[in-house]
Structure formats: C-alpha cells, structure tokens
C-alpha cells in the first residue's frame, strides 16, 4: 500500500525544453538591423583611433588611388609609415625641403610605376587623402604641396557621410 502511494506521488518526467521565443525575438532584431546596414561594398578603409575624419554633405564615392593618411601621430602612404607627427610638425617635411622628403621620394616612385604602359588607368592619378579633422591648414598644405610637386595635383578628401 505504501509502495503504491510513493509510486503515485512520483511525477511524470518532462524533458526540459528551451524557451526559444525570446532568443528568436533578439535574433530578429539583430537581423533587421544588419539588413539595414548591409552594403554591397563594405569599407576597405580601417579607421584607427588617431584618425577622426570630418563630416561632410558630399555624396561622391571615392575611388582607388594612392592612399595618404595623416593621423594625429603618423603620416602613412599606402599603409607604409613615412613620418611621425607631433602637433603641427611632420618630421622630415619642412617648407623649404619638400623635394628631399621621404614622402616626395615615395610618391615619385609610385608615379613612375603608374607611368608604365601596362599600368595605365582610365582615371587621372589622384591621392585619396585621409586626414584628421583637428589638423591645421599649415600642416595639410605641406603634405598636399609635396604631393603636387611629385605629380599628384588631384585629391579626394575622405570624409564621413552626414552633416
């Protein structure tokens, strides 16, 4: 009799089921957000913390070119470190010695490579210039003047979309 009672008290085993509804809700929200930020051409440019691009209303797309990056601390040409920056000064890039600077020499090399017949591009050669928004024109002018002297007078200033 006692055995029957204990048998009767034992509950039927129910396999534990996961509550997937809340997880589905979360995934649906993530999926919608990602669908909205979907881009056929995800940006190939990595923005580091020392580079804060200005915002602009421009809608023009950038095209591939020589990439010149002037961050708060460095001057890079196609990811190659050219000089260090401290405040408004770029090491080795003075107003009176632009043609002896490392930037000028490297740009001249790129220009010579582009001039080869097999490397002909339909577009005029240009520099894609990524510059930190806090730099003064004095600093920028040295860089763009040097690029102009090396045969790159056309620029595309990289900016972030938005006012």
């Amino acid at each position: 009799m006692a055995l029957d009672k204990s048998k009767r008290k034992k509950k039927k085993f129910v396999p534990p089921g996961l509550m997937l509804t809340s997880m589905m809700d979360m995934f649906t929200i993530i999926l919608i957000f990602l669908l909205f930020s979907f881009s056929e051409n995800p940006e190939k440019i990595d923005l580091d913390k020392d580079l804060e691009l200005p915002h602009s209303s421009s809608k023009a797309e950038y095209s591939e070119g020589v990439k010149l990056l002037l961050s708060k601390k460095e001057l890079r040409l196609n990811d190659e470190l050219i000089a260090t920056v401290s405040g408004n000064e770029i090491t080795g890039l003075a107003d009176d010695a632009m043609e002896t600077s490392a930037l000028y020499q490297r740009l001249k090399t790129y220009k010579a490579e582009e001039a080869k017949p097999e490397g002909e591009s339909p577009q005029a050669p240009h520099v894609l210039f990524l510059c930190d928004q806090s730099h003064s024109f004095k600093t920028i002018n040295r860089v763009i003047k040097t690029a102009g002297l090396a045969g790159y007078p056309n620029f595309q200033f990289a900016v972030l979309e938005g006012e």
Partner: protein
Amino acid sequence: MARLGRLRKQSEENTELNMVPIMNMFMVLIPFLLMSAAFYQIKAVNTSIPVHSNAPAPNTPVEKAIKITVVLELKADEVRISALSDQAEPRELAEMETTLARQPGGDMSIVALADFLKRIKTKYPASDTLLLIPDDTVLYREIIQAMDCVRGLESETLFPNVVLSGSLG
C-alpha cells in the same frame, strides 16, 4: 473510442512550432550580414591644387557666357570674397568683393556665404570654379565645411570645382 480520444488530445497538445531550423538559418545569416555590414560610410570631396605649367593654353573657342573664378579667403575671423576673370569688366569684379564676419575658430556664417555665392552664380551661371585660400591656422574640418557650402546642394550646384591653395605672396 477512448483510445481515439486520447490520441486527439495528444496531437492538440503538440502544436508548438519547431524553431530549431529557423534558429539555424539565423545563425548562418547573422555572420554573413555582419561581414558585409557598413557601420560608417566614407565619401569623397574632390579637389585639386594649382599647378605651374609651361604648356601653351589650349585654343578653345571664345564662349559668349562670361566665366569668373571666385576667390574665397578663409581667415580666422572673417571670410573675404573676390572674383577674377579676363572676360568681365574690372568694375563688375569689384562689385563682387565683400567680407563676411566669422567667429575665430568657430562656425562661419554659412547662410550669408551661400546667399552671396548664389547671387554670383545667378549673375554668371557658366562659372564653376572657386579658389579657396585658407589661413594657416584654419582647421581641416572648417575647410571641409567651407567646401560643402561653396559646392552647393544637389538641387542647386554653385561652384563644384574647388581649388585649394596656400596664401598668395
């Protein structure tokens, strides 16, 4: 009969949807979308710098419409506007000279500048070039802001060819 009723009761209880295949699909879709997501949009502002050339000027036919080049000097506390042209009369060019006040290091009077440029564009609609000469102390973001203003909007283009130059002289 009782057995049939029990079966019907069981099938009514098991009407929960099987979410596992949907979850699997989400797990595939989310990494794919994460890879192709763009969290920031980079755009370009086209510009150029003046270059010295010894090549002779091309023989272009003389156009009836007068073209002028607007010169915008961006100073720390003001914006000076003037115009250059070998087709327009010096008196007409002098009429386009003006100075707009600007807070040092702050935003310029975009509305006043855009209004003045619109008036020049209305008078000389064939003109499309502007020479921007910032002071050494002007910041890059202020230069971009000025370039946005002088290019105009998509609906109303003002001077799309902006040439950036250092101070003359």
